[in-house]
Structure formats: C-alpha cells, structure tokens
C-alpha cells in the first residue's frame, strides 16, 4: 500500500494539524485582510486572514473554535498557499475542491491535504473540510477586485 493510501498515516496528519495547527492565531496588524466563516449547519466558527505582497500571499493565518476536520484542513491549507502567488493558490484550491467533490485531481499539488480525500464518504463533513478553503477563495478573489 502506498503511504498515501494508508488511513493510519492520513489520520496522523489530521491529528497532528488538529493538535498543533500551523499559522494559528490572528494578528491584528496593518496589511492583513480577514474573513469570518461560520454557518448554521456547521458549528465551526473560524477567522482567516491574509497579508498580500503584490501578487504573493506573504502570510496567512487562522483562528477560531472548530472541529478536527476544519482545523486540520485549514492548517494544511495555510501551509500549502503561504508564499504562493494568487494564481498558484487558486490552482491548489481548484485541485482540493476537485478531490473533495470526487473529480480528478493532482495529488502532487495537494501534499498533506490528500488526508481529506475520503471526505465524500461522510457527506456531513464536506463543510468542515472546505470551510478554510472557502475563506481562502473569498480572500484572494476579493483581493483581485481591489
């Protein structure tokens, strides 16, 4: 079995990011743009913020009260897109959504995020696994509009 298919490893990735989330903690500094994501159907409530340097995501951080799935998926997302250009981040976002919604996707671009490839089996967790990614989309697409 490839390690990518080993549920024990995927599980460890999620637990690691849940217990030690990366880029965690919102800084209220100038230059950051923040969105709050919460919804009635999912009880997660998280903030995600980005600091752009021209076209590059110089910093991205998050915080909030959330389940393991949304915390870990958001943590991994921040690692994946930090330092990337908006275009690169959009491509990664697209591949992640493809994976979540059972379309073809590029494993290489997603790295640890493939831990969420089985999300569709528990349809009620799709919201958890995408909440941070949706925040990213909102932040970088609104960035473009400015």
């Amino acid at each position, binding site marked *: 079995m490839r390690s990518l298919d080993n*549920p024990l490893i*995927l*599980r460890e990735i*999620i*637990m690691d990011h849940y217990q030690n989330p990366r880029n965690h903690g919102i800084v209220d500094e100038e230059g950051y743009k923040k969105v709050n994501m919460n919804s009635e159907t*999912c*009880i*997660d409530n998280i903030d995600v913020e980005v600091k752009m340097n021209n076209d590059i995501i110089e910093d991205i951080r998050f915080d909030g*009260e*959330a*389940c*393991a*799935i*949304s915390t870990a998926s958001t943590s991994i997302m921040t690692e994946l897109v930090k330092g990337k250009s908006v275009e690169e981040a959009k491509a990664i976002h697209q591949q992640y959504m493809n994976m979540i919604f059972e379309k073809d996707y590029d494993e290489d671009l997603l790295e640890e995020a493939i831990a969420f490839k*089985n*999300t569709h*089996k*528990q349809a*009620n*967790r799709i919201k*958890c696994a995408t909440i941070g990614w949706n925040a990213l989309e909102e932040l970088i697409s609104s960035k473009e509009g400015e």
Partner: protein
Amino acid sequence: MDIEKIRNDFPMLKTKMQGHDLIYLDNGATTLKPKAVADAIYEYLTCYSGNAHRGDYDLSHTVDTAFENAREDVRRFINAKRVEEIVFTAGATDSLNMVAYGYGLTHLHEGDEIILNVAEHASNTLPWFDVAKKTGAKIVYAPLTDGCVTLEGIKSVTTDKTKIISVAIVSNVMGYVAPVKEIIKFAHEHDIIVVCDGAQSVPHHITDVIADDIDFLAFSGHKMCGPTGIGVLYGKYHLLDETSPTRYGGGSNARYKSNLEVDMKKPPYKFESGTPNIEGAIGLGAAIRYLEGIGMKDIMEREAKLRAYAIEKLKALDNITIYNENGTGAIAFNINNVFAQDGASLFNANGVAVRAGEHCAKLLDEYLGVRTTLRASFYFYNTEEEIDAFVEVCKKGDDFLDAFFG
C-alpha cells in the same frame, strides 16, 4: 406499553444509516412518524382532496369536517376550553412570531419589559428582540438556578413595567421543566401575560392549559409524530380576540370595502388567511390520536425511565461530561476533548443520530461556559438496547477520526 408493537408502527425504525440499524436520538429536532399519520395524510390526498371552508359540495364538506375534527383533537389534547382557541400555524416558530407581532407589538409601549432567559430557543428570543426594538420595550433576563428557570428568578427581575413573560415549558437544550403554573399564578397577580413555548413539552408531557391557566401556548406538530409545516397557537379566547393577524388574505375576513374598512372573522379564522395546511392539520390530528392511544402518562413514564437509564450508563464512563443530569428532556453532553461536531460524526458512522451544536439557544454558552454540545433526545419508541449501543459509541471517543476514514 408494548414496545415491539409500537416500533412496528414506525417504518423509519426499519431503515439503516451508514450500514447500521438507525438509532434515532434526535427527537428534540423532529420525531419519526407512525404509519397511522402517513396513512391519514395519504387518505386525504387520494380519497377526499379538496379545499376547506368552501363547502358548496359534498367533497368540500368532508374536508371541512376532517380539518375541524383535527382542531378538536388538538383542543382535547391540551384541554382547552373552546375549540376556537386553537389556531393552526406553520409550527411553534410561526406561533411565537404571531404572539410577538400580533399581541406584543400592539400592546407594548416604550419602557415596558419582557422577561426571557438565556436558555430560550431563538424562536422565543429573536421575535421579542425585534418587537422590543420596534416598541422601545426592554428585554430582561431571568437568572437561571442550576440551568433552570425558577419562580424566584422570575420574581427577582419583575417590575411594575413587566408586561410579558415568555418561557419554554421544557428547555430544548437543558431539558429542565419550568414551574409554569407557579410563574403564571404570580404573573397574573401582577397583570402580566405569560407566553409558553411548548415545543419540547407538549409532545412529552400531559398538557392542561386550563389547570396551568396558560395565556398563550405554541407548539409544533412534527415534534409529536405529526408532519412538518403544521403547528398550533393556543390563546385564551379574549387574548386571541385582542391579537392582530400578522397575515391577511382570503378566508380570514367577513367583508371589506374600498374605503379600507375590513370586517375580520372571529378567532381562530382571522389568523388563518389563505388555504390552510389541510393535510398537515389532518396528520397532526392523527398523531394526537396515536399518542392518546398509547397514553401520555405512559409516554412520560417511559421517557423518564429511558433518560435515567442513559444517565446512569453515561455516568459510569470517565470520558463524558453531562451538562444536565437532572431534567426530563434532552441530555446535553460532550465527549471530553472531542469537539461536538467530531463527536456527532462518530455517532453518525455508527448509525446513531444525535445533534451537535448550539441548538438554537445561542445565549446559553454564557451560562454553560461551553459553546457547543452534543444532544441526545429520546422518545417513547427508543429502547434500552439502543441506549446501550449509543453508550458503546461514547466509549470510542478517542477514536473519533475513525468515523472520518470509515
């Protein structure tokens, strides 16, 4: 009570979830339906489908009779004095909005006070917020004692400005029974109207609006084996008479003229503009007769037994925090160190339906010190064996991610 026979009445209890026999412990959200209710609705839709209150032909007369018989079923079930005191609504939320806007908005003045408490459901909070904003009235929160509304708590915030107390008879998260009879007696001595949210009490307890002297009572059909989209507003006749309709249209008025003169019908019809939810009312009537067939006293006793059994089993575990050990309704709990949503997912993977969240009581975290909980809520058709299976899942708390990898 013949549980096996009862369980056979519920087709949903033969279904599966995630490959397991469904264990349905989210009865606070909605209950499953007995075949008798589905049959009654099916019969209306296939054997005597027509509009109500248009009685120019036999078919319509049959519909009228069934619709008004359902109103009588409701009257008998809550022991109202007059059938005219039963208004069909879309549900408890609709009923509470009708009281807030139809009675509150027309009777409250600037500086008047409405007493609520932080355990109330959004449906019994947000309409009052809006009415308070519109009238200049003030919302006052009665303090809770161990999570429960008490007469002393109500007394402590009552002033000569208090006009309305709105309170859930049973809290949807905490499951505690408010001493409504005592609260109402006290309120009436001070000319205060009491609105009761019966959404979580009417399905499970014996309701007697005369004995408790209830002014307004709101409840939903779907939480008591009936269909969704139908509910009831009970009001004392003279209060309904003073309440303005919040919707206007056909069926509610006797006559009107171009100079804006409208002569409204008497309660309950003035509140029931438009074609009513006929199959909903008929389904609710069938649900009530089904519950009466089992007996509300037996239902209460069985649910108390199930709850006590579940509490005892949960207390034996060292990884569970229970927030409302005493009480009659839902059990609010968490698996320690597992976020409620992750917990609910674990239950889902094992075929157990429990709810995670704030349960629409978003002020309650200020009391509990925890924002989200799991909620297991029982009905008479649940069994000790189902609770055993539920408790087994609780033990797997540490493996909550297994659910994700199925």
